[in-house]
Structure formats: C-alpha cells, structure tokens
C-alpha cells in the first residue's frame, strides 16, 4: 500500500510540474501574437475613432498590460486559481461561465465516444485475433486501416449528407442535453459520436488484436488448455486480462484524439461545445478564451494519463509491487 501511495504522490508532483510548464507555454504562445493586444482588444469592442492615446494608456494600465511579462503571467495564473478566467471579448461573458456551459456538452460526447470506442474496439480486436486468418479477420483488418486513416471532418460531412439530407433520418445540427429530451438527444448525437469514435474503434481493435496475438502462444495459455478448460473460459479469463495493458495505454491516445476531433465535429454539427468555442474564438481573435480552453484541456489530458497509469497496477499485479 505504501508503494502505491508513494507512486501516486510522485505522479502528482510530476503532473503539477508539467501543468506549470503547460501554463507557461500557453501564456507564451498567446503573447507571441503580432500586434498590440490592447489595440486588438479595442478593435473588437468598438469606437476605435474615439480613442486617443490617453485612453489607450489608461486601458493598458487597467488590464495590467504595461507590466513586465512574468508579472502578467503570475497575475493570470493566480486569477485562474481564484476562479477568475477573464472575460470573452466576443461573447462579452465571463469565460468561466462560458466554459461551465460548454464543457459538459463536449465531455458528454467525448466520453461516450471513448467508451463506445473502447468496448467495440476490444470486442472486434478479440474476435479478429481469435479467428486469425479466417474470413472475419481478413475483413476486419483492412477496415481498421481505413478507420484510422479516414479524416474526421470528411466522415462527418459524408454521414451528414447521407443520413441527414438524403435519407432525412437524423438531425444534422444542434445539441440537446439528454436530461431534457433523451431520445432527441440520442438522435442528435449519434452522428457526432460515431464520427469521433471511428478512429478509436479502429485503433483499439488493432491494438487489441496485436496484443491478443502475443498472449495466445504464451506458456500459461498452454497450461490452461492442458487443464481441460473450455475455449471461451480461456479467452475471457486468461487471455483478456493479460491483453488489456497496451489497450489501456491506447485509451490515453484515444481521449486526446477525440478531444482534438471535437474541434472539427462540433464545428460541423453546430454543437455548442468547447471545441466549437475554441474555433470561433480563434477566428474572432478572442485569445483569452483560447488560453483558458487550452489550459483546461491540457489539464484533462493530464488527468486521464494519471488514471491510465494507475490502472496498470490493477491489470498487472507484478507492477503493484515494483
């Protein structure tokens, strides 16, 4: 137990250091912007003609933009910890509030997509490995290659056209919370979730297949056969648990991929999530929003990676005692 605690502590310290570096990176990128941020800000908010140098100076002072960069950085960081993420120029809203509205949407779709990917991917990969060389496997393999190669946005557009326009089966835009109208929410989210999940299903299936194919010739599987256990039992009890490790690693990759893909999917399907907010903020030069969103996303990815690392201990008992 002690070892576990020290491991978690070490991991958390590592995460904090990384998060710190992340914040510096984000801050620096935003400050790389060409042009004076104040003018940029002002050019958004209106009456550029009425500005004179005095007012510009005053505004600069008000937003603390005359301070040296490290001071600005610390100010930003401490504000975040106090819950003050700043204000969106474009939406004229508190960013914290904006994110609170939008993140659940993105998380709903993303997490569902990850779960679907994992479960389907594991099953498909398992079947392909066990029936290696047979027709099922020969069909699955090329499909997985296509799955990891297909551009997300293209799949979205294609599905949108086929199911939304041509067949008119599914709504092509928008989002409803499942708590408000469950079935409509499902109808609206099927296409986006499918698009986000394709890479995950294909990738997971490949990982799983490869992993199972490595476990199958192991000595302990031969022992299991020699004990007279039935094939189904051997596959589920002996093969599965030992094959899952690489797939769990892949979960981290899938999550990153899904979040990255949400940018495209939400834009295409007009879903009011964080991805779409990011894109529209970028186009609107609303960089404070961009800053905040990327920070939170990095934090989420970090958390997922920690969870993935900890789950190794459950999967492989040898790791627990390291």
């Amino acid at each position, binding site marked *: 137990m002690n070892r576990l605690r020290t491991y978690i502590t070490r991991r958390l310290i590592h995460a904090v250091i990384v998060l710190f570096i992340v914040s510096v990176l984000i801050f620096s990128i935003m400050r790389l912007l060409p042009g004076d941020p104040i003018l940029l800000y002002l050019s958004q908010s209106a009456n550029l003609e009425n500005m004179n140098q005095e007012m510009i100076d005053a505004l600069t002072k008000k937003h603390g933009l005359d301070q040296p960069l490290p001071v600005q950085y610390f100010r930003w960081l401490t504000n975040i910890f106090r819950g003050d993420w700043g204000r969106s120029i474009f939406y004229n809203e508190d960013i914290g509030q904006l994110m609170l509205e939008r993140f659940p949407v993105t998380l709903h779709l993303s997490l569902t997509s990850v779960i679907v990917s994992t479960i389907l991917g594991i099953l498909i990969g398992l079947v392909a490995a066990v029936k290696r060389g047979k027709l099922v496997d020969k069909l699955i393999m090329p499909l997985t*290659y296509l799955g990891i190669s297909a551009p997300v946005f293209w799949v979205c557009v294609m599905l949108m056209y086929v199911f939304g326009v041509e067949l008119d089966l599914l709504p092509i835009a928008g989002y409803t919370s499942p708590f408000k109208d469950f079935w409509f929410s499902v109808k609206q989210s099927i296409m986006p979730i499918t698009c986000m999940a394709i890479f995950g299903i294909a990738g997971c299936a490949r990982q799983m297949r490869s992993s199972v194919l490595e476990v199958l010739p192991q000595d302990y599987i031969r022992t299991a056969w020699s004990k007279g256990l039935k094939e189904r039992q051997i596959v589920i009890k002996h093969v599965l648990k030992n094959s899952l490790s690489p797939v769990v690693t892949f979960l981290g990759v899938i999550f990153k991929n899904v979040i990255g893909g949400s940018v495209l999917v939400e834009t295409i399907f007009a879903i009011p999530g964080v991805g779409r907010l990011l894109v529209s903020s970028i186009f609107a030069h609303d960089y404070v929003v961009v800053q905040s969103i990327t920070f939170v*996303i990095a934090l989420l990815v970090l958390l997922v990676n920690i969870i993935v690392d900890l789950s190794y201990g459950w999967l492989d008992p040898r790791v627990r005692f390291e």
Partner: protein
Amino acid sequence: MANNQALVQVQDESPGFSEAPPKVNEWKRFKRVFFARGMVYIGITIMLILVVCAIFAPWLAPYDPYKVGVAGAMLKPSSEHLLGTDSIGRDVLSRIIYGSRTALTVGFLTVAVASVVGTFLGVLSGYFGKAVSAIVMRIVDAVMCFPMNLLALVLAAVLGGGMVNVIIAIAIAMMPGYARLANGLTLSVRENDYVIAAKLAGAKNSYIILKHIIPNIFPPLLVLITMNLGNVILSEASLSFLGIGITPPIPSWGSMVSEGYRHLLRSPHLSIAPGVAVMLTVFSFNMVGDGLRDALDPRLRGLL
C-alpha cells in the same frame, strides 16, 4: 539377428549430416516479412500513384487547377470534367491531382523538421541525462498534453495561415513524439558495451552520438516517420478544412472538402473525392509503416 560382419570401430571424426541451419539473407528476410501482408502491395501502389501525380501533375491534370471555369460552376461529373467543377468552375480532378503536391510537400517537410529537431533533442536528453533530460522531457510531457490537432490549430492561427506556418505548427506538435522515442532508444543503446568502449577509448561525445548512437536508433525512427506522414496529412487537411491552413486558390484536399460542406444541399459530391484522396493517402502510409515496423523489428509492436 546381430550382424557381425564388417564390424568396425570407427575412430575418425565423421562430420555427420547435422549442420547448422542455413544462413538467412537479411535482405530476403526483410522483403519476405515486409510483403507478408498482401495489403502492403496496395499501400505501395497508392504511394507510387501519389508520387507520380505530384511530380507529373502538369502533364496528368486535364485542366489548370487555378483557372476559373468558363464552363460553369458546380457542374456534376461529366465526360469533360470527370469529377465535376467547384463553386468557381475549377476542374475538381485537376485540383485533386495538384493537391497531391500540397499534401506531399507539407507532409515531407513537416516530418523532416519534426524528426530532425525532435530526434536531436531526444538524443541529447537520453545521452547526457540528468538535468538535460529532466528539462527536455518535462517540456516534452507538457507539449504532449495537447491533442495534436488542437496545438497545430492554435499555433497555425497565431502564426497566421499559409503553408510555411502550417508546416511549422504541425512540426512543433509532432516533435515531442520523436523526442520521447529518441530519448528512450538512446537510453538503451547508451548502455551497450560498444558505447562504453568508445568512451573509454576517449572518443568525443559528438563522435559517439553520430557514429554509434544514431545509426542504431534509426530503424524505429524510420517507422515513426512513415506513420507520421499520414498523420501530418490528416492534420493539414483538418486545418485547411477549417480555413486556417492552406486556403484557396492553392489546391488542398482539406479545403476542397469544406467546399462540399458549405454547399451540402446543392453539391455534396464536391466533398467525396478529396476526402477519399486523403483517406487513401494516409491509408497507404499507415500500411507501409506497419510493414516497415514488422520487417525491421517486430518487438516494436507494442511501442509503435
């Protein structure tokens, strides 16, 4: 019955017919494993078609991809325009063929930059260890917290659009992958006896790195490069789709798909061909990358 005639106690050393197993020709083995999966042929064929399209585009394309159409906009596929025309009347097929130039150029340049810089950092980190490694790898960890698409998107937007900035943006997003791989590989190669021997003989660090470390970590890096080519093309296409990457009139498959999206009700067919082009390109790189990995070192299965 015992046969006692010609009973001879043999004292000589008979060589016997038990020999060592036949020597395996390395190149033959490589070829055999590489082509083991029939689909690799498809991958290589597609890659060849791609390269041919890119190099010989002016001769292959029926029309000038920039020429605004006299024939008419949004035409459906016909015998004159095999894939139809886009919203300003440019021939889609020609734009797709020229698009391969964009894709491959961006692909190779980005991967070149990312791999060289990333590997360099990774090798330094792995070889010198301690402080250097701590700093470099933490930064790598930080950059890897961003989904690649996201990072490339933000960077490209900040830097402004255009091909060069796209290349820089995606390359920065890809570097950590190389750095991490190179770091891990260097760590294991560093402990080998020939490296220690070279150090003891007084060789300079730069010599050791160039002559001993890099040649030995090369194969997995090559595999990563091949696989990343596909990812780069996907990334660039995504950026172009959003309008941040390579914008018209330069033919880019991603921006062509977005045209079909914007005119979804009228001409969705504009999206089909360019998307398929991206998919097949990435497919071929993934295919070849897998074959390379299996042929070079199957132990990499878990890593890559």
